[in-house]
């Protein structure tokens, strides 16, 4: 921890690009909503209403929010199974996301995908991917398409530290660099793969940043629990990509407050490590910072209350939705709406 604390900037830190105050309150709002949403999702799991698996990003909100605030509406998001926050960050409706976790008809994908595959093309949330690595290569494809269409869209792709050790990571980074694609790769280094510390299975200390040079890229390492830093890094990387400078690889150091997935209490982690990171929770930290920057506490309280109300409403709406129509089992394998494989 000392090492991290050392690197933690004193006072009011800046990323490459300093954020105006209205952006910073918007980021705070996003983080508070994410936190409220995921805490509720966890409660609903305990009540047996969220089925299957789910992977919370509690503690990692500053990454999704900082990048979300820096993206244009036309930019693309690609996320992992730990993608609730990234989905909300693009504006997907909370109720639909909650209903998807609960396997209801009102779900974002009517229950067909589940928590691990949240997708809302309407919001340019191009999917959550549950097999480690693949989506880095897919994000390249969206960036390639943007480039060929001269569309100016940037693809932003989130993944974990553990993902840096799989082959697809390597192939994606190299191709992105060679083709100078407008794609930003964001490694959320939360120090653990599932139950194994990343340091025990990785040849370098910083799984993403220490490998940037292998793709001709500059290493970028930020405090992922500091939304100003993530926002600043996001702005810089996205603008670099949008202006034809090619890909960027950002490593954001962060921590998940809970276990890997819903059933995991995360007990394998040393108490001191957990405690130290809880002390660096991005949300209270940002709250203090905003107060220090002159934001009226009433504004923040209102954000917090509204977020809570929104979560309550979303949960109610999701719970009110029926299970999906069973005809969906055979629907939408093909573009014709069906799944027939024969004459």
């Amino acid at each position, binding site marked *: 921890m000392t090492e991290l604390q050392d690197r933690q900037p004193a006072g009011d830190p800046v990323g490459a690009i300093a954020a105006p105050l209205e952006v910073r309150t918007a980021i705070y709002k996003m983080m508070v909503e994410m936190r409220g949403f995921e805490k509720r999702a966890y409660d609903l799991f305990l009540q047996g209403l969220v*089925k*299957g*698996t789910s992977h919370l990003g509690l503690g990692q909100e500053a990454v999704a929010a900082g990048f979300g605030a820096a993206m244009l509406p036309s930019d693309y998001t690609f996320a992992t199974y730990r993608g609730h926050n990234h989905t909300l960050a693009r504006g997907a409706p909370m109720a639909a996301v909650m209903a998807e976790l609960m*396997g*209801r008809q009102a*779900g974002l994908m*009517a*229950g*067909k*995908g*589940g*928590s*691990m*595959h949240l997708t809302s093309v309407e919001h340019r949330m191009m999917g959550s*991917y*549950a*097999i*480690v*690595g*693949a989506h880095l290569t897919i994000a390249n494809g969206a960036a390639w398409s943007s480039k060929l269409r001269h569309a100016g869209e940037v693809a932003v792709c989130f993944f974990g530290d*553990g*993902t840096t*050790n*799989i*082959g*697809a990571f390597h192939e994606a980074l190299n191709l992105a660099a060679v083709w100078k694609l407008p794609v930003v790769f964001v490694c959320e280094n939360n120090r653990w*793969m*599932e*139950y*194994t510390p990343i340091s*025990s*299975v*990785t040849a370098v200390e910083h799984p993403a940043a220490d490998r940037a040079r292998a793709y001709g890229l500059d290493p970028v390492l930020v405090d992922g629990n500091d939304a100003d830093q993530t926002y600043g890094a996001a702005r810089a990387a996205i603008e670099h990509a949008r202006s034809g400078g090619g890909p960027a690889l950002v490593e954001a150091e962060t921590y998940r407050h809970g276990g890997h997935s819903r059933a995991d209490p995360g007990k*394998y982690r040393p108490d001191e490590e957990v405690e130290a990171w809880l002390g660096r929770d991005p949300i209270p930290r940002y709250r203090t910072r905003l107060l220090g920057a002159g934001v009226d506490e009433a504004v923040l309280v209102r954000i917090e209350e509204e977020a809570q109300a929104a979560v309550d409403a979303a949960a109610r709406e999701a719970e009110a939705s029926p*299970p*999906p129509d*069973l005809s*969906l*089992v*055979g629907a939408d*394998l093909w573009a014709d709406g069906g*799944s027939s*494989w024969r004459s």
Partner: protein
Amino acid sequence: MAELTYRDAVARGIAQEMERDPSVVFLGEDVGAAGGVFKATVGLLDRFGPQRVADTPISEQAILGAAMGAAMTGLRPIAEIMFSDFFAVCWDLVANEIAKTRYMTNGQVSLPLVIRSANGGGVRFGAQHSQSVENWAMAVPGLKVVAPSTPRDVVGLLAAAVRDPDPVLFFEQKSLYPTKGEVPDGEIVDTLGTAAVRRHGRDATIVALAAMVPRALDAADALSREGVEVTVIDLRSLVPLDVTTVATSVVETGHLVTVEENPRLCGWGAEVASIIAEERLFDLDGPIVRVTTPHVPLPAADALEDAALPSVARIVDGVRRALQ
């Protein structure tokens, strides 16, 4: 004799073989310190130490490459691929390297290794964590393919797989992990390529595998209440395939129903059906019926997943169609 879960039977089987043979090693993601994401390998690290129980990075190709290279040079590795869906990220090692090397080298290279993986649906994990891919493996020459349905078979078939001189893909059905069964004390070693007749009846033959076995038995109960008595065969192994047991039963009953968790096209049931249609056509008194997951990915929502997987009702219905 003790009652054991299917989950605990995995650790017992591995431990039995590691205890017996110091050349048996075990590797995979989160398998050691964490005891596996399904808690099926708890205690092995403590018992056998980090040299023989190795946690790996998320690098499935590297895992299977390590297993293969070690098997070529004197060890007998057991590798875990956490979910069988992830075979897709390391299929080159499985299908192109491990399966073909003995043959290509004219028998010079032996690959005594086992790849365990959690297979199948029923736990609402969605399309990328629920596939039944035993038919992918069956389609590749050079792989033995095993899929137990009971805790006892987990131990015995795992031991047989470890002792087998050829590569074995060992599919554990993840919805079966919490199920319990009697497991005899002491060493258990089974024989690959032998099916088990789980129930005997003269009206029709149901052939099932892994999680479909208990469902087929439930269907048999239901049918029995209607006066239809079926034989239920648990294949246990797809390669080698116990054609004899299946064919013998079909000759007796005249009717065959296969129950597959894999999606329809090119499932193992198609192979079984084609064998019987070639070798026992004139013993059939009715159509060969295949009950499968429809040819779609598995949806995540509980209601949808239940509707997609072969249910007891669909099996019963399949037998009725076969008997018409």
